């Protein structure tokens, strides 16, 4: 199980990390910076985290997935700092004997990360910055 907060994500390495002799399938989700939000052009996203707690929560989430599904490998990796359009900001993945488990686990990892892990994202537009989800 790999759980990390890093400055730069290389999505290409994750397949090797998920490889296992008993894994017939790996499912990976990569989140990246989109150019437009509600038709407004985004210059960059900036991520900050409460690192000790974020790593603890990510480990809990990975352990929950291991309890729910029969997984051989898991990766949860999030980037911090300023990220330009198309840059990867998060990679989660799981590998398992059959594909149902890795698809469901991968979805669980990203959904639960977004709900619980203390990481905050600020959208940087030309003339303003906005903390995402801060207001109702």
């Amino acid at each position, binding site marked *: 199980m790999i759980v990390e907060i890093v400055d730069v994500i290389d999505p290409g390495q994750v397949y090797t990390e998920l490889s296992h002799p008993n894994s017939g399938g790996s499912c990976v989700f990569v989140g990246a910076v989109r150019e437009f939000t509600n038709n407004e052009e985004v210059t960059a996203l900036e991520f900050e985290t409460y690192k000790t*707690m974020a790593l603890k929560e990510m480990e809990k989430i990975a352990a929950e997935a291991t309890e729910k599904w029969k997984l051989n490998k898991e990766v949860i990796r*999030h980037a911090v700092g300023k990220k330009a359009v198309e840059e990867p900001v998060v990679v989660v993945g799981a590998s398992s004997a059959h594909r149902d488990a890795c698809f469901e686990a991968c979805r669980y990892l990203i959904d639960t990360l*977004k709900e619980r*892990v203390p*990481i905050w994202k600020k959208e940087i537009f030309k003339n303003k910055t906005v*903390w995402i*989800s*801060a*207001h109702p």
Partner: protein
Amino acid sequence: MEVLLFGIAKDIVGESSFRFDEGDVVPKSVSELKQKLKNTFPDLGKLSSLAVAVNSEYANDEKGLSQGDEIAIIPPVSGG
């Protein structure tokens, strides 16, 4: 007792952390801390949610606070 601030909570308070020192009235529970913060910084009350972590774990309102705890104010998370 040290309180860490992140994201928009840091911007509202204008600091990345603050301390309750010996002379201060130290909040005894998570709910007391939240109430105190919302009174001092009304904009914190306008957020979609406001959680508190004690020693890097989410804590519910009833959770008691001790002088040595690391407290963190957790505004709505938005990772991923």
